[in-house]
């Protein structure tokens, strides 16, 4: 029931693990859809990390390890509910039909992002938002690097397709590019 950890291991947990709380919360919120659910999975992530903290090797990638736990927690929960079903073409049309013409706003990007598959959202969160390397993302996702690359490529295409359909060329405007 109980286990004892060294003082150094506790300091390491604070130094190496808790510093990623905001990033985990940010990712969880986008993947879970609500702050409450995100807090639940992040807390469970840290409880599990704590449970196995004695196995953590200083110098290894704690952030990727934490994200991997996070994704496992989310997958377990989503598996208990409904499978993540990708949207069909008609669904995209329905989503985009009501968007105003013109420049894409952040909330619109998020709305489109939230309709990507869980795998696509996860890889975008890791590589694009958290700026992980493919290798680090592969550890976090528990998949080969090749899978990271293919998922990322599909995610980018899908995101662009969904955004571009409603707002041709407006993505560029939104960030002030010249083209």
């Amino acid at each position: 029931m109980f286990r004892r950890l060294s003082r150094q291991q506790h300091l390491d947990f604070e130094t190496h693990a808790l510093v990623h709380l905001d990033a985990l919360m940010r990712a969880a919120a986008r993947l879970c859809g609500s702050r409450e659910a995100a807090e639940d999975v992040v807390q469970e992530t840290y409880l599990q990390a704590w449970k196995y903290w004695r196995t953590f090797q200083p110098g290894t990638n704690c952030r990727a390890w934490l994200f991997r736990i996070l994704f496992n927690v989310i997958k377990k929960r989503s598996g208990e509910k409904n499978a993540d079903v990708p949207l069909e073409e008609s669904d995209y049309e329905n989503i985009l039909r009501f968007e105003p013409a013109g420049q894409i706003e952040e909330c619109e990007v998020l709305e489109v992002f939230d309709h990507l598959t869980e795998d696509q959202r996860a890889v975008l969160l890791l590589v694009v938002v958290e700026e992980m390397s493919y290798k680090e993302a592969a550890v976090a996702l528990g998949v080969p690097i090749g899978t990271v690359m293919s998922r990322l490529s599909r995610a980018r295409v899908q995101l662009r397709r969904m955004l571009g359909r409603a707002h041709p060329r407006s993505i560029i405007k939104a960030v002030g590019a010249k083209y």
Partner: protein
Amino acid sequence: MYDCQKTRELIGLYLDNELEATSTQQTAAHLEQCASCRREFETIRSQNELLSRSIKNSTYDTQALRASIEAATIGRHRSHLPLWTLERTRAGAMAFVSAFVIVIAALLYLYGFIGASGANPLYRAAAENHRACIADYAAPDWVRSQTDIDELAASFLEQKARIPLMIGSDYRLTHARVCRLNGERFLHLIYETSDRREASLFVGRWSRDHLPAGERSISLDGHAIQLTLASDLHVTSTQIGNNLLIATAHGDGESTTILLSAIVQIPA
């Protein structure tokens, strides 16, 4: 230098700094002289920036969450005392009580157990009761068989109930009786390990109004306790003075919730 087709295949990797030096140079060289590929590059880059900015702008106040996590993990470290982790108990090993029940447990590690000044009155009462009961094993009102304990629990809770036989993997239910904490009746369950460490669970009846279904926080003696869901158990912990309270709760439909609280009293 790469052609357009090759460049577009590599634009994503180029943006993510995943290309080797030679490929990076050749891709950059092509982008420099090809307006069409450069537009493609800028589109993807802009999409990345917009997405990243949008998500990073969604900030969350994680102060309470951090405090909750720290209390459940390193929080105890700050007391410079032996640190313990209450591992998540599987639902199958948990008791299921068909009415609304709150269980307050005092986990008192033998050598670390002393009364603490300024402790929450209920915690202190639980701790003192635990200490008194450990020294009173021979009292006639203890029941010791599983059947007798089940009957006592059903009588106390006024309905059939399954009391947890184990806490974690090594604390086994050995005996029980009814006691009073601060004037309120509790079912006192004692668990023992093979090396004679004891833990007490105090099971009290609680009004359903105190923890409505779906409520995420509870207040125990005026202290708010944040709950979070860990698989099928809500797990939380908080340090109040020199008492560490670890609570787990199982939600079952609309009406049944069990709270299992472990209080580790930390010597001052």
